């Protein structure tokens, strides 16, 4: 699809967002002596090897014991450390929900839960590992900040930014090599949505890997004479409701796009905002009450209705409902 389109954003390189995390935490290691890393036997997958090598005293290998890792991270904050935990998104959330709830969120601990291999784009490992419920679980926890960046550069910037934010954070990223289309020098502002493309007919609110699909969709819609606004919601919570309302006040309809269950995801947060302040048609691009399966990231996004073509269809439907 991308070859025939006049894109507003382009890329020369693809890289995994998890590498953005790995490079971000390495930089933090050099600039912030309080930052410590923990990992549950997935150093290679989380790209934490360079941090471990350079800062062995500030790195804690917990073995395959995620519940213990979350508790240790909470304990390390008592003593002024800023722990970054690393494991797959499934084991960073569902597996340890009660540990996060009691020892981190309710206790107000300054732990950064860094979660890779989120969503369908994990690919061939299949549904056991493709968590699609994590954003919902984490956003329900009071005072938890939830961030889902879109590419390597944004993930690196987000990793660095959360160290200066006091309080628990869930940072979600993934495994596939994905276009790098954002500025390497960007300043990451937690809770501030980024209007990437201006438009007037429909707003596409996208998060994570699907931001790139939204960029493709905008160009396709433009070919059909439709002007779409694309807003990158990298912070699911706290949600930038002002930016959402300002955009939908203009376009009068919206699409949400996320690599997550429709139930409990970004779209639901947007719907809550719209229904309170600016009731408007909203179409959801997300996984519809289903588990994933094995396959390539591209094949999975297509089968489960999460790619640019699905965003285009949803945008047209939203416009028709105005």
């Amino acid at each position: 699809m991308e070859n025939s389109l006049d894109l507003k954003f382009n890329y020369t390189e693809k890289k995994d967002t998890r590498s953005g995390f790995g490079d971000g935490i390495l930089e933090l290691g050099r600039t912030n002596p309080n930052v410590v890393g923990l990992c549950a036997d997935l150093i290679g997958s989380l790209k934490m090897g360079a941090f471990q090598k350079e800062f062995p005293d500030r790195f804690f290998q917990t073995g395959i014991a995620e519940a213990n890792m979350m508790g240790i991270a909470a304990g390390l904050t008592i003593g002024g450390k800023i722990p970054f935990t690393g494991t797959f998104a499934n084991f960073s959330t569902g597996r340890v929900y009660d540990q996060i709830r009691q020892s981190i969120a309710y206790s107000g601990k300054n732990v950064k839960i860094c979660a890779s291999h989120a969503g369908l784009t994990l690919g061939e490992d299949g549904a056991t590992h493709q968590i699609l419920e994590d954003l919902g679980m984490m956003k329900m926890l009071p005072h938890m900040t939830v961030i889902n960046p879109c590419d390597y550069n944004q993930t690196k910037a987000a990793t660095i930014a959360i160290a200066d934010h006091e309080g628990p954070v869930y940072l979600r990223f993934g495994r596939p090599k994905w276009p790098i289309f954002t500025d390497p020098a960007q300043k990451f502002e937690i809770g501030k949505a980024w209007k990437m493309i201006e438009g007037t007919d429909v707003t596409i609110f996208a998060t994570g890997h699907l931001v790139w699909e939204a960029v493709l969709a905008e160009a396709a819609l433009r070919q059909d004479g439709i002007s779409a606004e694309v807003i990158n919601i990298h912070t699911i919570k706290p949600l930038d409701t002002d930016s959402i309302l300002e955009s939908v006040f203009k376009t009068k309809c919206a699409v949400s796009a996320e690599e997550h269950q429709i139930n409990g995801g970004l779209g639901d947060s947007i719907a809550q905002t719209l229904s309170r302040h600016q009731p408007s048609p909203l179409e959801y691009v997300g996984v519809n009450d289903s588990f994933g399966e094995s396959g390539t990231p591209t094949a999975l996004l297509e089968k489960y209705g999460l790619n640019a073509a699905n965003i285009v269809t949803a945008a047209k439907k939203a416009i028709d409902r105005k």
Partner: protein
Amino acid sequence: MQKKSIEELESICSQVRRDCLRMVHAVQSGHPGASLGCTEFFVGLYFDQMDHDPQFNMNALNEDVFFLSNGHISPVFYSVLSRSGYFPIDEMKTFRKINSRLQGHPATHEHLPGIRIASGSLGQGLSVAIGAAQAKKLNKDDKTVYILMGDGEQEEGQIWEAAMYAAHWKVDNLIATIDLNRQQIDGPTKEIMDLIDLRAKYESFGWTVIDTHEGNDMKSVLEGLEKAKELSRKGKPVLNLLHTEMGYGVDFMVGTHKWHGIAPSDEQLADALGQLPETLGDY
């Protein structure tokens, strides 16, 4: 600070037990049994063993720190914290009531001085204590981290993750204690889920283990804690198996799981308080 005599510490215990029973009675809710069973341990820690600062600082730099994993015994924790100066003793009146800092289970959310982690959902405290102990090492802080767990709580899997970790990474500035009262809500641990031999289990996990056989005798409790401290910082985490009687100090509550989570009636409270002299003044 001058050391308190055994008699003085025992007299504090009597008041702490009164506080526990009066708190639980006032709201007809809470967990008196193991609070009474662990009274000597708490008083021994906070009034003798620990070097701690009631001008509470969350990060606990250069002071000993204590975590309670079995958070349901909050009455004894609150009494000992307030009696050692962390917050006004009058505040015990608010236990488990609306708008209180003394939540049913300990929490940091309301900023009660002395509490560093929420607990109540069992099995999580040992991991937190390990993290705090490792932070002390990173900070070149040579003080000790103490943690109390229940014996029924040993049925939680996370504890064994933590036990493995603490030995593997030589977290030896950590002294864990298990309140071995052999009871849990549904009955004796032997019937519900037999713990068999906790000493053998922890030793095989790589811990140094001691027994405090008389967990309701102040002298034995202090000796146990002293011994645990001597054995710490030798490359292994230390476990103190504290043999206690649930409900100790009140004749009709002792040695049964019946008083795990129920409150005494007016008559039962009067009977119990009659057995426990008011030594420091009731709140």
